[in-house]
């Protein structure tokens, strides 16, 4: 019997047969922390009493969640993390460099890698054919010390994709629709694997959006095969030597197969306060919005800013609706400047936030007021997520977000000329 992508990668990195259900100890290619989970990881690492980290080159610290910092305690956490990076010689990125998951995609993850991060959206790197998963601070601290960690090899659900996205329907709509279908715990302890004839036309940024949200169905990983699209992306990042093709075996065993035709998808919105509360945009049209937020590890990439800039070009945001845009990385911001997207967004009334997590998690830069509603391109709409339990968060694609910023209410992007 052949192997799924999860089994193949974990077999290679553990040097065992690694069948679903097995417990394996696997080599970790990249272990990383961000600034809200990193300080605990550093303290736990110090508790372990190891003389040093296993491989400084396989470790990274990202300052992104509260960057620039809004309060002294978080500034002090940044000092702690910079000190740790200095002591160990591991990688560190600074305030304004971008969101950890985007930087992992740009700079680190390769097909076949095992990536663990103390952030639940570490699954994002599955877009490049890595086995990538989120863990807590203690698990990542141990990966720092040992250079490996343990896994129960997951069973896999195959998502078989065909067709093409209709105009102004985005990868985000696929992700929200899928989570609505599977449910917030429908893939708990399992891996999602993506396959099908549509993949050859799905860009890496689109794959990153979909893999990013695998955890919202409870999944341990969301993995794409590594193909020509992957290779071109790695080459564009100057990392073509990290490419190797990676596919599941033809006779791999899946727990189930979900087939989807992208051509049948509609713009989709997740209603408060659950990601799997997903409906077609028409069912929620007209909800008044005080804020629209475009950005995050889900939808802060160049393609996302491009579709938003296209919809907003030459127009103005609704006067009652603030529009916040946070590019996912310095590279994205730079390319968006060069392409003219930033100018179009600013002219339409957008506030450009520094590359980073921005308003997503309610720490700074866009905390909602009581009774306010926000449409966000992020991945979570839990009560209190954007800093206020009295606020409402709707999740949607960057196209729906831009269309809604124009009208001040949730709007089908296909209706905007």
């Amino acid at each position, binding site marked *: 019997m052949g192997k799924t992508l999860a089994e193949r990668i974990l077999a290679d990195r553990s040097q*065992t047969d690694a069948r679903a259900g097995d417990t394996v100890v696997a080599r970790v290619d990249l272990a990383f922390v961000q600034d809200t989970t990193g300080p605990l990881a550093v303290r736990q690492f110090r508790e*372990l009493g190891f003389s040093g980290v296993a491989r400084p080159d396989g470790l990274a610290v990202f300052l992104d969640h509260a960057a620039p910092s809004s309060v002294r305690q978080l500034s002090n956490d940044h000092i*702690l993390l910079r000190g740790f990076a200095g002591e160990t010689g591991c990688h560190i990125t600074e305030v304004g460099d971008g969101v950890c998951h985007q930087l992992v995609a740009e700079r680190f993850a390769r097909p076949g890698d095992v990536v663990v991060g103390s952030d639940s959206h570490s699954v994002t790197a599955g877009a490049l054919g890595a086995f990538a998963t989120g863990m807590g*601070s203690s698990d990542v601290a141990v990966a720092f010390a040992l250079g490996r960690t343990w896994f129960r090899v997951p069973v896999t659900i195959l998502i078989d994709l065909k067709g093409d996205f209709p105009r102004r329907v985005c990868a985000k709509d696929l992700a929200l629709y899928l989570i609505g279908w599977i449910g917030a715990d429908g893939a708990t302890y399992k891996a999602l694997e993506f396959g099908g004839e549509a993949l050859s036309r799905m860009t890496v940024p689109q794959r990153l959006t979909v893999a990013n949200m695998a955890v919202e169905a*409870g999944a341990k990983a969301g993995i794409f095969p590594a193909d020509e699209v992957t290779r071109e992306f790695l080459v564009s990042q100057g990392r073509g030597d990290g490419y190797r093709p990676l596919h599941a075996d033809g006779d791999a065993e899946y727990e189930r197969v979900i087939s989807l035709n992208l051509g049948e998808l509609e713009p989709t919105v997740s209603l408060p306060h659950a990601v799997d509360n997903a409906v077609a945009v028409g069912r929620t049209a007209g909800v008044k919005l005080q804020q629209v937020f475009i950005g995050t590890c889900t939808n802060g990439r160049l393609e996302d800013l491009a579709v938003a800039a296209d919809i907003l070009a030459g127009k103005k945001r609704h006067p009652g609706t603030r529009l916040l845009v946070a590019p996912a990385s310095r590279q994205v911001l730079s390319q968006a400047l060069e392409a003219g997207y930033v100018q179009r967004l600013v002219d339409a009334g957008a506030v450009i936030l520094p590359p980073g997590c921005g308003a997503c998690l*309610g720490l700074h830069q866009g905390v909602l007021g009581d009774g306010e509603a926000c449409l966000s391109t992020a991945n979570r709409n839990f009560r209190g997520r954007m800093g206020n339990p009295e606020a409402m968060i709707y999740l949607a694609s960057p196209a729906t977000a831009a269309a809604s910023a124009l009208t001040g209410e949730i709007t089908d992007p296909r209706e905007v000329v």
Partner: protein
Amino acid sequence: MSDIILRGRAVRLGDNISTDDIIPGRFAHLRSNLPQLAGHVFEDALPGFTSRVKQADILVAGRNFGLGSSREHAPLVIKMAGVKAVVAESVARIFYRNAINQGLPVLLCDTGEISDGDELEIDLARGVVSDLASGAKLDCSPMAPLMLTIVQEGGLIPYIRKHRGFLVPGESDQEHGHGV
């Protein structure tokens, strides 16, 4: 080492309790000051929780407890509130691993018949939750042997400090491995 038999009073919770419910992200600036952070446990979702929960209580939840963020501070502040164990129908993957790593046992069984305030007895090794109020004995999904050892040894950090690796087959021939 944790006790194999735990006894405590059930504190009933519902389905889909997220890590933002347990400890909202807006308190991230307090994560380097755990006593202060712990004062905000369930602040939005269950007002009054800190005065309601008592030492050795057992949280009893429905489906998908702890979904969302990877913040290990979620099981940490639950433990700091005095909670001895979590019993739920299902638990989000990262929360499950984090709780075990913090030495907080998590048991998975059908919790539908457990009422708030019931006296519970948990046999960790056998994986049985007994509701002493109703007399029901609930069989739990077995915990992976590695996880049971980690929780019995007080969490992942004490476990690794002691063993310098993971006690699973094949581990001893790896670079730092001194396991069996």
